[in-house]
């Protein structure tokens, strides 16, 4: 699972549980810092490969009529005439102080710009994740242990859901629920009603994935001795499902959440465009089009940060949900 450092051996006997946990945490955090540094470095050098002159992107983008003096001025203002190594360490130094630079096109600090956008995107992602969880759980609870037809139907729904492209699903949802039925607005309005269609668009394909894994875990859980004994005690089938098996079904889901969040951020690029929501995805798309390098770098770093935090969190949650993991140490 993500975040667990590879290659760490079995803890030496005699070490206390606490020491093991501390060591694990230290590795986890060290790994997280490394990932952020590597992402910043990779992005910095990848962006040097982009054809085109950053100075031109700063001066009104392509198609501008900037004079040679203006271009030279900008190059020296932004340090673009410095050697690459100097620029690289300057960037790292700025990053350490939390300075992401200034947007080429909007001329405002990137941190400020992204700070205003991340809330909306995270809210969208978290709501979609929650909705996907509920949908997936409902589908897998409904379709397991009810015979072959329900199982086949459940699997079919999962597969179809997971194969739906966001942009197409969004168009269908708008056609049905906005234009047809008039239940929800097609353009996000900041109200809860405006949130329904974007969240549904993101949640349905994700639920397809989650349900696949949950159903298998549920089937496993249903065969566990404690479930069998509970059944022997005469507990209702539904009661058993809720009391005993959800926890088991949830475990793989939790460790998937880090991946799911990244997946949702990808989807947000499309969904934010269709539903006209402000957010990181749309910011990124626009920045890519305008070659606004500081914004692209900022979004990439921010997403990496979110991923890293999620990885650490899911690792910790998984340990709490399943104490065996904490005992066993890293594989």
């Amino acid at each position, binding site marked *: 699972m993500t975040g667990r450092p590879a290659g760490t051996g079995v803890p030496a006997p005699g070490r206390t549980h606490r020491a093991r946990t501390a060591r694990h945490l230290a590795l986890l955090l060290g790994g997280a810092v490394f990932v952020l540094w590597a992402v910043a470095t990779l992005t910095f050098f990848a962006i040097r490969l982009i054809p085109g002159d950053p100075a031109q992107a700063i001066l009104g983008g392509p*198609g501008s009529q*900037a004079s040679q003096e203006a271009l030279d001025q900008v190059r020296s203002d932004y340090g673009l005439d410095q050697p690459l190594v100097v620029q690289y360490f300057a960037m790292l130094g700025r990053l350490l102080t939390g300075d992401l630079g200034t947007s080429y096109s909007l*001329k405002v600090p990137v941190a400020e710009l992204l700070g205003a956008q991340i809330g909306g995107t995270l809210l969208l992602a978290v709501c979609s994740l929650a909705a996907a969880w509920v949908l997936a759980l409902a589908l897998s609870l409904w379709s397991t242990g009810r015979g072959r037809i329900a199982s086949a139907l459940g699997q079919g729904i999962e597969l179809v859901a997971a194969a739906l492209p966001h942009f197409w699903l969004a168009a269908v949802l*708008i056609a049905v629920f906005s234009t047809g039925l008039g239940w929800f607005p097609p353009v996000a309005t900041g109200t809860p009603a405006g949130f329904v269609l974007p969240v549904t668009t993101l949640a349905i394909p994700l639920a397809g994935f989650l349900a696949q894994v949950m159903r298998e875990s549920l089937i496993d859980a249903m065969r566990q001795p404690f479930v069998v004994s509970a059944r022997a005690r005469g507990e209702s089938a539904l009661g058993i499902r809720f009391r005993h098996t959800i926890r088991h079904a949830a475990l793989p889901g939790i460790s998937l959440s880090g991946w799911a969040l990244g997946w949702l951020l990808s989807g947000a690029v499309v969904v934010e465009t269709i539903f*006209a929501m*402000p*957010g990181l995805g749309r910011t990124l798309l626009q920045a890519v089009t305008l070659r606004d390098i500081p914004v692209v770098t900022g979004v990439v770093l921010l997403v990496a940060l979110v991923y890293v935090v999620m990885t650490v969190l899911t690792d910790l949650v998984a340990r709490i949900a399943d104490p065996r993991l904490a005992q066993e140490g890293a594989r």
Partner: protein
Amino acid sequence: MRTATPPARRSRTVGLLAVAVAGGVLLAGCQADEAPVSEEPVAGGTLRYASGDAEPSCLDPHVGGNYPQALLASQFLESLVSRDESGEIIPWLAESWEASADGLSWEFTLRDDVEFTDGTPFDAEAVKVNMEHLQDPATQSSTGYLALGKVDRVEVVAPDVARFVLTAPDSALLESLSQPWLAIESPAGLARGMEENCQAPIGTGAFVVDGWVKQERVSLVRNDDYVSPPADAEHEGPAYLEAIDWRFVPDAASRYAALQGGQVDVIDNPQPDTIAAADESGAFAWLDAPRPGASNRIELNSGQAPFDDERVREAFLAAVEVDDGIDALYFGTAGRSYSALSSVEALAYSEPELFATDLDRADALLDEAGWTERDDDGTRMKDGTRLVLRFPVSTNQSVPAEQSLFEQVQATAKEAGFDVQISLLDLSSWYGALFAHEYEIVSAPYTKVGPDVLRILYHSDSITPAPSGYFANLAQVNDPEIDALLAEAASTSDPAERAAQYEEAQRLILGGHYLLPLYDQQNSFLLSPKVHGARALPTVSTPSFSDAWLAE
């Protein structure tokens, strides 16, 4: 406008000028329709506008200067002069003007009762500061800077008289000044510096920028002290609307769905099929306002092989069939153009015969030009070279219907043996391809008031790239005769002479087989039946809501 019936379906042959007239008919229709019911304009309310144009990176249209900026700036900035339906220049912030006999000096008498919304008085000093701002390289102006190419300086003659001193006579000066990219802003506002001024420029307009939430909306509120509508406005004094909520909704289907659901009152850039549907059902009013300047056309790069041979250019024009495609893809909402200029330009000259499809003629011309062999795909070859036409298409500037039309161009040209290679590119890559001359055909809209756009697009001076790499003469037209005509037309003070020179220049440009005109630059708005009194300014066809009101 409630029952405003957009113009009856036009026959294509009436075409060109009909579109311009139609815009007028529509507007006239709107206003005429209101009268019989004798509905009085209702004050108050917020108009919700959904824009599909790109979100500007700076609200000050002096910086850069593109159409999305003009759309918004028209709500809160005003120009020295405007244009009426017939194309005549009319007073706005300037009451009158007079050129010296040699055409090198223009005196503008300004209104003396206007203040910017920050309280700064509007005067000759403000005009001077604005023109200097536009000409200052640090402003990064592109459109405005080019338009002031012949302006040497502005002198303050009196508080209400500004004198423009030119380096050469400029017959396009008034047209240039009517554009929102040369609108007048508060000198105090400009003094705040670019970053702050970009967020909320200060003008004299009917509305004031109240806030800008990036990627979401610009909030505009009424200017209660508004006194300076253009001479063709419906009413004096402040706007009826209390505010405008200007939202950015990039997806066309979402925009139309929002209009249908009553979430917004006005949308721009609707899809042709939705225009047709709205038009037919009468559910929404269609405001058809083609942009001025150049028509939407495909330019043929005559600067390199294979289009350096005029016969090959002529063969391409003879091979390509677009009429049926325009009909089908635009559902009858766009008329075919046969001119380099927009149909709203009074001096637009059309020559339909030049663009008749004739495959036999195309084949004969290509044979004559030496493209005689064919490879397995049916593509013509000459000395082992395939007849390839690279066609970079900007996904940011071409709507889906237009991209489909380009695919039809590709398919029909193939029959004559052209291998048209379309590449869909984002804006930066697209400019990159143009700057590197990696194109044989390209479509690039250019909006400017007046026929002087021809000088920008087809004068050989425009072949030389700016330091950024940009050049406007994408067809690489390099003809001394055309250069001379365009230069003369731009400096003559006699309207009849000017018209004759522009017509001759257009005759030469069209006759040189440098371009394939398609239709006017489409610029449509769909309005909810609640909206009354909205119109498109006859300058660059941006919407104006200073006379608009919302019915209960």
